[in-house]
């Protein structure tokens, strides 16, 4: 990252200091691996963790009920600008590919449900959205940054995970083959 001056990290000049730093970092890594509260195992090609929620329209949202459909599970929040950039595309996909078995499900990671509800209406989301929490986040390996989208096939297996500002064309190319013709 060229934007960060080299001095910031207090980079050690001598080999001895460098070794000490590496040793300290190594110890940190070792300790954190044992203490990490978030799941580090990948969910790829495994059954998507099940959950039941009440959506923003007060309807029951049970992931299991969408078995047989290809699900895009999108974690978002109102403070996440990248998430809002994706939303119009998700709305279009739901209309275009819904009849072929695509179901988009949104999980808002906002602390305040009122904010999520406001954006849900403003963006005219045509798919169910429920509020998330730290428990659901941990279930999905830790939602420690947004946007985060999981592609789940019709058998309920996680086929892909898209983190950060992903290439939406690439996401579309990955779910299309999983849909009904």
């Amino acid at each position, binding site marked *: 990252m060229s934007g*960060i001056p080299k001095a910031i990290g207090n980079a050690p000049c001598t080999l001895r200091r460098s070794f000490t730093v590496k040793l300290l970092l190594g110890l940190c890594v070792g300790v954190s691996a044992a203490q990490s509260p978030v799941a580090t195992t990948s969910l790829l090609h495994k059954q998507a963790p099940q959950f039941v929620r009440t959506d923003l329209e007060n309807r029951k949202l049970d992931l299991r009920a969408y078995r047989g459909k290809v699900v895009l599970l999108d974690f978002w929040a109102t403070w996440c600008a990248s998430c809002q950039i994706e939303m119009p595309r998700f709305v279009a996909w739901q209309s275009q590919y819904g009849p072929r078995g695509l179901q988009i499900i949104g999980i808002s990671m906002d602390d305040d449900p009122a904010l999520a509800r406001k954006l849900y209406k403003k963006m005219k989301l045509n798919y169910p959205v429920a509020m998330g929490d730290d428990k659901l986040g941990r279930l999905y390996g830790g939602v420690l940054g947004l946007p985060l989208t999981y592609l789940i096939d019709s058998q309920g297996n996680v086929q892909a995970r898209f983190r950060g500002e992903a290439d939406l064309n690439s996401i579309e190319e990955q779910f299309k083959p999983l849909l009904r013709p």
Partner: protein
Amino acid sequence: MKIGLVRRSGITALLVFAFLSLSMQLRAQFTPAPAGSAFSIPDAQLLKPEALVQLLHTTNKDKPLILQVGSHMLFTQAHVPGSEYAGPGSQPAGIEQLQNRVNALPRKKLIVLYCGCCPWNRCPNLGPAFAKLREMGFTNVKALYLANNFGADWADKGYPVEAGN
């Protein structure tokens, strides 16, 4: 000779067209960073994750105050050990919470702010929180540089984390 020239210019035109359409698509998808984003923080005040890991082992009185100024839901899942939640910097209530937390501190105190909610150029929290502390007269404020988010640039790298409130 002529056919070769025509073919070459055809390929060049095709490449230019492909480049233009790709750049248009990218521009449409990746709109500019909003005002007040983390980009407003001077480079000299940024702290790399590995530098913060070293600071975590500081035992003297120079130990920094580490504040997360983003989402509480993200904080409860995982945060930098010893750090405190100080409210979302993008909201007035969050800025007030931050102000209350640091008000009594000496202005030379080393304070490290971090968020990691989203990609650096999209973070709405760090910029306002950083600006508030500078406005209050704090002279030793750093911002943890997390290019993508807390998960990718901290937790996944194996740096230490804690869960809970």
